[in-house]
């Protein structure tokens, strides 16, 4: 293992600080297998290995997900292809799969099969055999089902008993449930044998792997004598690695994430504000809320939060927080317990604490302590009972009162099963701290890396772009003169979209563009671009995508729409451009063989820009979205988000629920079609869209005349009216009472803005900061402040006489950046 981690680091593969109990070994730390110093964090070796745990220890190591294969290749090279293998997995037919398979073979309509499959109880442990057991639902399962699911299970039994095709299908599916359907490969397990592997275990091959694959699966591999190591790929490590690389490139700062100070003030502030989007393991909104409550100031707090934030122990977080702020007293059943529970404010958070206390209070050996931990974790009653006797005996021998011991034991039984492996939490808290450190100190590079590694998931990209916006981090669209292949950071510290984010622009063209730019500098114009790139490097599709995505906006003399306008005898200017390039390169080639080559360059004139009409904004944005998957320059409604939230009745998707009532809605006009009726009067068909949905509605006669000028494509509007059925028609209409442009009225809608400030957050510095923001955003909105004391649940509402502010989006973003909640009224 030491060999692999060391070699991986030498190869430039990021190695995680480890996961699991191996972090409890100082030897593993010295060897570099883990980066967590077990002595510093009071981690226990016996959690990893002890005389009573004779099985091979598990050492799982994370590598950056791109480097993982390199490490495996190294292992294969070192030990030989015939001594290394991956591990097989058996794909079995689970209940629903079994139903579907059998249903298909019996030619039962898919819809009916689906209906049956969906009616099956959703519990993880529910199997057909258990639900259909002869004597009634398997009692073990029944215990775990809620009444709703039991009802479903009973219904299901009835369907299964029927003498119908469906009944037979279910009975057969039950018989075949658990059949091995196919084999696969374990995601991360690798085994290494001392010599030819076939001597020890039969192996097979798999289509999607060059490595051998054992025929025995993970559950028996170890018993069959195979040393199994988990080589896991962790994307976060790749994100860290690439961020570090970018920081060095853009700022010339070399960072070793293993050396960052764990008392870094800026990093803790980020955790305290709950700004943990993109922070490994701390990004959920629930976690963010608790982080704000806790306001962590030391690494121990972060370790504890990682251990606590999971189903079960979650319930202890409020108490943990309250105790950390001194709002709740910390008490110990026995004073001797303080030593190990002090760091978590008297709450048992870690398995290690139970282990240490059992040793201290009742004289358990380290091995016994680990056995106790295992027994409680897995709720093995026989082990727990045996240990109980020992605990009482040892505890009373140490002169501890029996009633106290009993209470401690009861508590352990109740929540020790929730207690978490501190070694593991420490490792992951460390990774989290590293990402948070980068986010706090190098936000542009960090977010660029995060965006790059989320690029296959548009919703994630959108989410992180929003996060950039909240952070005040500028993100610019693609640009042939500045973009790299992936997201990158420019000299001004702005994030640049990568060219590979554009649909239809493959690796080849991106490489060509970047190579030429690096060798000979920026492109002066689109003609320069065409001339300097080898013919064939780019085609029509590539240029189109570059244009639509804004990649050529740096050549300001040409509008995006102009590229698609007819030019000379060509359908579009793009085609004209390409023809020009062809002719140019053709001449260049012939010139090489000509003595008078030099003079010929100017012989082909650059095409003249064709006339065009510009695209409406929404068109432009929608086309941009077509090739990038998102509104890079932001959704046009983004600027009014707070106002829309504060002043509309519902969004356009929910409008169905408000039929016949007056509602306030807002959105952008996506479509406006103007027509003339047979009678000669004008009417129109409009589409309004907001963040959630869209609304189509017609306007006739007077209303049409009155509002048509406001309802122009691309306009962001606010509308008051009634959504109802048209007279004598099935069609729905929106009977407008008022239309205003968001741009001009959004301010008028807002009367005042309320800032919510937690009592504990108030400091001189904070007040100055708020004051500063208000001064910079002077306006006509009243400023209100509500001070909240969470511990006593009291609030104090104040309103400012002296200050009035202009509560636009910018103001809100700045306030929220301080970690304060903010509401428009």
């Amino acid at each position: 293992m030491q060999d692999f981690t060391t070699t991986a680091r030498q190869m430039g593969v990021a190695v995680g600080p480890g996961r699991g109990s191996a972090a409890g070994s100082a030897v593993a730390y010295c060897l570099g297998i883990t980066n967590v110093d077990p002595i510093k964090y009071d981690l226990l070796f016996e959690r990893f290995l002890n005389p009573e745990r004779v099985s091979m220890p598990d050492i799982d190591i994370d590598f950056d997900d791109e480097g993982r294969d390199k490490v495996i290749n190294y292992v294969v090279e070192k030990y030989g292809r015939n001594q290394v293998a991956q591990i097989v997995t058996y794909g079995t037919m689970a209940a629903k799969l079994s139903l579907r398979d059998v249903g298909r073979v019996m030619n039962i309509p898919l819809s009916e099969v689906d209906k049956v499959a969906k009616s099956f109880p959703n519990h993880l442990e529910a199997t057909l055999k258990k639900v259909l057991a002869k004597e009634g639902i398997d009692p073990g399962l029944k215990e775990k089902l809620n009444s709703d699911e039991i009802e479903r299970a009973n219904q299901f039994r009835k369907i299964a008993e029927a003498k119908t095709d469906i009944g037979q299908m279910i009975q057969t599916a039950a018989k075949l449930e658990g059949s091995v359907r196919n084999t696969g490969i374990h995601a991360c397990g690798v085994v290494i044998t001392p010599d030819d592997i076939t001597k020890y275990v039969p192996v097979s091959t798999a289509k999607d792997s060059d490595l051998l694959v054992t025929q025995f699966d993970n559950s028996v591999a170890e018993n069959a004598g195979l040393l199994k190591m988990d080589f896991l790929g962790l994307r976060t490590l790749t994100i860290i690695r690439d961020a570090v690389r970018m920081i060095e490139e853009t700022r010339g700062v070399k960072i070793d994430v293993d050396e960052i100070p764990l008392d870094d003030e800026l990093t803790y502030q980020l955790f305290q504000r709950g700004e943990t989007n993109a922070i490994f393991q701390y990004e959920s909104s629930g976690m963010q809320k608790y982080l704000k409550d806790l306001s962590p100031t030391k690494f121990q707090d972060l370790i504890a939060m990682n251990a606590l934030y999971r189903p079960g122990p979650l319930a202890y977080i409020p108490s943990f927080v309250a105790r950390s702020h001194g709002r709740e007293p910390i008490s110990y059943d026995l004073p001797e317990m303080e030593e190990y529970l002090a760091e978590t404010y008297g709450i048992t958070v870690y398995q290690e604490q139970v282990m240490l206390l059992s040793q201290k209070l009742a004289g358990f050996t380290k091995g016994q302590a680990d056995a106790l931990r295992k027994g409680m974790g897995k709720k093995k009653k026989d082990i727990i009972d045996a240990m109980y006797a020992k605990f009482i005996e040892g505890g009373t021998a140490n002169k501890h009162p029996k009633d106290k011991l009993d209470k401690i034991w009861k508590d352990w039984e109740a929540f020790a099963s929730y207690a978490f492996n501190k070694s593991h939490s420490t490792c992951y808290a460390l990774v989290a701290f590293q990402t948070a450190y980068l986010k706090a100190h190098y936000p542009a590079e960090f977010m660029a890396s995060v965006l790059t590694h989320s690029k296959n998931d548009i919703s994630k990209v959108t989410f992180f772009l929003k996060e950039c916006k909240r952070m005040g981090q500028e993100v610019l669209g693609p640009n042939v003169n500045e973009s790299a292949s992936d997201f990158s950071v420019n000299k001004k510290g702005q994030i640049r979209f990568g060219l590979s984010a554009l649909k239809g622009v493959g690796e080849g063209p991106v490489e060509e563009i970047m190579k030429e730019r690096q060798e000979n500098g920026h492109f002066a114009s689109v003609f320069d671009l065409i001339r300097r790139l080898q013919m064939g490097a780019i085609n029509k599709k590539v240029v189109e995508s570059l244009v639509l995505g804004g990649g050529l906006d740096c050549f300001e003399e040409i509008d995006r729409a102009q590229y698609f306008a007819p030019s000379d005898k060509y359908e579009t200017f793009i085609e004209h451009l390409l023809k020009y390039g062809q002719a140019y390169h053709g001449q260049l080639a012939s010139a090489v063989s000509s003595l008078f080559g030099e003079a010929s360059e100017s012989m082909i004139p650059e095409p003249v820009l064709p006339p065009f009409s510009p695209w409406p904004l929404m068109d432009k944005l929608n086309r941009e979205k077509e090739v990038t998957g998102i509104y890079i320059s932001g959704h046009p409604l983004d600027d009014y988000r707070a106002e829309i939230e504060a002043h509309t009745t519902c969004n356009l998707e929910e409008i169905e629920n408000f039929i016949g009532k007056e509602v306030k809605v807002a959105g952008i006009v996506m479509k406006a079609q103007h027509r003339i009726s047979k009678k000669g009067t004008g009417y129109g068909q409009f589409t309004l869209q907001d963040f959630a949905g869209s609304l189509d509605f017609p306007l006739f006669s007077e209303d049409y005349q009155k509002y048509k000028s406001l309802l122009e494509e691309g306009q962001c509007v606010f509308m008051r009216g009634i959504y109802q059925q048209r007279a004598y028609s099935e069609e729905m209409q929106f009977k407008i009472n008022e239309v205003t442009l968001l741009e001009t009225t959004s301010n008028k809608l807002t009367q005042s803005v309320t800032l919510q400030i937690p009592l504990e957050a108030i400091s001189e510095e904070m007040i100055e900061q708020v004051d500063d923001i208000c001064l910079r955003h002077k306006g006509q909105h009243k400023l209100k402040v509500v001070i909240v004391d969470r511990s006593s649940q009291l609030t104090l509402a104040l309103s400012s006489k002296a200050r009035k502010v202009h509560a636009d989006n910018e103001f809100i973003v700045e306030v929220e950046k301080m970690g304060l909640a903010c509401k428009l009224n």
Partner: protein
Amino acid sequence: MPDFLHLHCHTQYSLLDGASDIKALMDKAVRDGQKGVALTDHGNMFGAFKFVSEANKRGLKAIVGCEFYLVEDRHKKVFSRAKGEQDHRYHQLLLAKNKQGYENLSRLCSLGFIDGMYGKFPRIDKELVLKHHEGLIATSCCIGAEIPQAILRGKPELAEEKLRWWLDLFGEDFYIELQRHRNMENIDDLGVSQEDVNQQLLLLAEKYKVKVIATNDAHYVDEEDSSPHDILLCINTNSLLEEKDRFRFPSSDFYFKTQQEMNRLFADVPHSLDTTLEIYDKVEKLNLERDVLLPAFPLPKGFATQGDFLRHLTFEGAKRATAPLRLPRYRSA
């Protein structure tokens, strides 16, 4: 009534061909008073470990084997249809007699995948059998095997020649295998029945003094499981149950029969039942569990043992570790 045990059994690990759950199979063997049971999945040994440990739990003797796909040349993977070529795969049963046999079985099985994979069939050839036959028992196997196929196709000399090859190599460890399943009166429309083949096999057995075993090609545990098994075949071949010409088994006889049923079926050749017990005696009890084997890590010069090298690396690493060493608190307590 002579004792009997099954030497030809498929489990769920014959992927969509076998329907037997290993535990259910073994439970039935125990209920029926059988002393042991064999595992002979198609081309693989996926189930071997579980099979052996489940058998050991129940005091049954596990006989680990495999029903291989045997071809002329395992490397040949291109077949010219124009020349009328196709991949002729014969079934071939091999059982491990002892540890060495198990290792050879494992090797053959692995090489079937590594060298011989064609479509979804891992294939071996006689070259491999020659090389890795020590400790193995071979049988003439089912109707899909070399010798029965030769008989079926009306080539008795060829059948005899094939038999001699196996006999030469395996000697006492080669057995003639008899199977009796209903609805195999006219195999492949050749006008030959399974029993016709059996009679020819018996003649050969007498001529060459080869012992005979009775087996049942068990693909599921009980007879009533034949229809779920049939559905499994449909899933495998992606066909509908109602299709007429799809692949199916000839009858519902392919289950794990009781000793009594087998006795009735082979009442006329009782020694074929006895011989299964001979194999039982011949096969050594297997235990596939072993302590974890460590990789053969190449030690750098100057270190006698891995322990020495580990110590060295640890102390070197400790020097680099930045944190000042201090005694952990719990020691002082």
